[in-house]
């Protein structure tokens, strides 16, 4: 599948700019649940990027892939897999229709993130259309590039509010020769202690999670190195020699298909995503709010917490430890951690710099943007 609809997209944005009409940017619709619900988007005209598809360049030895934003994530992952490579940030897709543009716009990363970087870390460059309908390129297809401000990375996680992604260039890496997951039983504090101790040594850790008394640690690398790591940490190997069972776990974790995410209460209880210091056992929530139904990832730096605590309570607890909490599923109230007045002012100025008529996904990230 290969088609270039950048001209149509540009025309639609130019028209919306002239008429000051909001646009709701849509790719594969796989992450439509993510972001603020805002009536300005609800009533907005759709800007459908999903037909802007195709891998534009990929040379395995250059470790770079460039694709149009509407290219399916699955298509890219298959192409890389066929060449023994991968997207190091292990992005979740949440649906087969997920696109690479949406993946970057949301800056969501999977289990390998704490060890190989986030979507934004692997982003080398992009082509965008800003809110005035101007088509521009920033960054490029090389690993090192410090010419001009890092506008590409600014796009990662901006949820389309600064520009519509047309093309992205990403750094890719070879797949490891061997990957094994070890399982160990620990209390939460023991588990955090262990993962921190191991992380201070050069073990080839590539993923970690803790839930329901089970710490899982994945090792990736040269066969001898992985075998040595297993010796060091002990525990039980997941699925022993059958690689698939181990892959299945991390796949289900990143796609939120584990029981933790799909169980009976999943359809009703809000799911929080909390990014915070890795060694703090839990957030301090006022009495009466559940704080223990938690799945840890990224060596403790990411927590998935099911809690009925109101947004203000959760976000002030996160901010007390210099972290941030976003309401990931079952959204109500303030979805993303409120910004300090100073940062909000800079955010508004940047929004103005890219989208002066406020037509691109207005209110998707913050009501003021």
């Amino acid at each position, binding site marked *: 599948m290969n088609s270039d609809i950048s001209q149509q997209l540009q025309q639609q944005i130019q028209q919306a700019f002239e008429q000051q009409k909001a646009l709701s940017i849509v790719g594969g619709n796989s992450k439509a649940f993510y972001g603020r619900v805002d009536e300005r988007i609800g009533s907005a005209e759709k800007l459908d990027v999903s037909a802007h598809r195709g891998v534009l360049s990929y040379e395995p030895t250059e470790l770079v892939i460039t694709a149009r934003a509407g290219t399916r994530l699955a298509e890219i992952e298959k192409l890389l897999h066929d060449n023994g490579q991968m997207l190091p940030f292990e992005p979740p897709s949440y649906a087969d229709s997920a696109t690479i543009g949406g993946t970057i716009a949301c800056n969501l990363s999977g289990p390998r993130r704490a060890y190989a970087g986030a979507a934004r870390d692997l982003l080398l460059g992009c082509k965008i259309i800003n809110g005035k309908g101007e088509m521009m390129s920033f960054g490029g297809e090389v690993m090192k590039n410090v010419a001009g401000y890092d506008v590409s990375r600014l796009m990662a996680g901006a949820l389309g509010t600064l520009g519509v992604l047309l093309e992205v260039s990403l750094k890719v890496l070879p797949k490891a020769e061997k990957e094994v997951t070890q399982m160990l039983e620990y209390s939460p504090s023991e588990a955090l202690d262990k993962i921190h101790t191991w992380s201070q040594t050069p073990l080839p850790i590539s993923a970690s999670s803790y839930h329901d008394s089970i710490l899982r640690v994945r090792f990736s690398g040269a066969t001898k190195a992985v075998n040595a790591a297993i010796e060091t940490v002990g525990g039980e190997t997941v699925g022993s020699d059958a690689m698939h069972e181990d892959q299945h776990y991390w796949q289900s974790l990143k796609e939120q298909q584990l029981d933790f995410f799909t169980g009976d209460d999943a359809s009703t209880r809000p799911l929080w995503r909390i990014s915070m210091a890795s060694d703090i056992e839990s957030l301090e929530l006022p009495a009466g709010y559940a704080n223990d139904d938690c799945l840890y990832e990224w060596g403790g730096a990411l927590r998935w917490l099911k809690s009925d605590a109101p947004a203000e309570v959760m976000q002030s607890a996160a901010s007390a430890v210099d972290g941030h909490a976003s309401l990931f599923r079952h959204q109500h109230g303030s979805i993303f951690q409120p*910004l300090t007045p100073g940062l909000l002012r800079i955010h508004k100025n940047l929004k103005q710099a890219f989208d002066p008529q406020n037509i691109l996904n207005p209110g998707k990230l913050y009501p003021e943007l």
Partner: protein
Amino acid sequence: MYTHDKAESTISSNALIDALRQIVADDALLHEKEDLKPYECDGLSAYRAIPLVVVLPETIEQVQHILTLCHQHQVPVVARGAGTGLSGGALPHEQGVLLSLAKFSNIIDIDPKRRLARVQPGVRNLAISQEADQYGLYYAPDPSSQIACTIGGNVAENSGGVHCLKYGLTVHNIQQLKIITIEGELLSIGGSGLDSAGYDLLALMTGSEGMLGVIVEVTVKLLPKPERAQVLLAAFDDVVKAGEAVGNIIAAGIIPAGLEMMDRLAIKAAEDFVHAGYPLEAEAILLCELDGTNEEVSEHVFKVREVLNDSGSIEVRTARDEAERQVFWQGRKSAFPAVGRISPDYYCMDGTIPRKQLPQVLKAMADLSAEYKLPVANVFHAGDGNLHPLILYDANIPGALERTEEFGGKILELCVEVGGTITGEHGVGMEKIDQMCVQFNSLELQQFHAVKAAFDPQGLLNPGKAVPTLHRCAEFGAMHVHKGELPFPELERF
């Protein structure tokens, strides 16, 4: 001597100095000509300017007051760390304040459990790793100036080093920043987790060359020191073969910790200088460093040897011990001073290209070298395509610097032409400002200016650097007409 556009300050120099005296102690304020002289340039000494005043605050509050004062009176401010930058980013403004962060030199805290170091901006890059060493940790980005350069400057320039391919640039290795805006407001960017809410201002600040805010605190990520590092040296009778070998190593699924290439002239200069035992008959050598656990390194050394042999190297050596590993590196790390011994002056360029374009770029550079009658030694971060051609010249010959700069500019334009960039790690600063007009069109440059205005609408922070005005590009374009087309056709010509 470089002359800036006139600033529109609303305060006399004497009144400004008096006002600064209310903020910092007398010995933290320099305004006598002889005291200002050491600040006239950074690592790019071709550009010089004497600032109105140098101020060396030591607290965040003082920086806030200085910036508030400058903002109030429209006085330009240039922030400076150790002054080791190679693109003139810290070149002072003649009518402005040079804000030295040298006194912010404390490591505030090292947290081995979280693997973070919270440091002041004036802390030297290497000092962080030295302090973290007791916990078996280190800070990965290692620009060649790491013994002297400071972390604040590293953030401002998004510095790299020889280990970038595997461990990333500064932007990948920092977690939190405290900055002060031109209005004097203290902002905290990033957080205690791996990501933060809202736009990625951490990335935007990194590499912004002092144009958006003044960095007053940096939290960097620390990594566990690899159990072992091993280096291989391979010699080739052809630069193209060496380039192909780099691709073959990566195709074998190995990401080396460092992968460096030197050409014949660089090899000879380095060998004469440090006697690293480099093979003088080689057209190119590759240094390939592998690190990780013991087992991993053993396995990879074996594989890489095979790949290098299969790629047609005429000789492959593996360092027998740590001492020999240091010797292998010594030659590469001394390449710049070594070239400095064989030529009165040299000019270091910093383009990045897609690696596959190497043969074409080297050929074109050799042609330019012949045309300008200026020799070029090539030192190359081969893994990530970052070229450092060193142009040899003699500044005492009238017009030589100008010809060298023109030659350098052409090399950078060549990098852009093959899909690369004008700067991989040194920054644009003053040096490459004209080449920005080649890499970016007027819409993109205007977008950069809009980003700048979001932080500093009056353009007081480091004015005239990093992003050229469209007029400047129009003037530059008039001299450089490509394929008969005038760039920036929407602008009038001067």
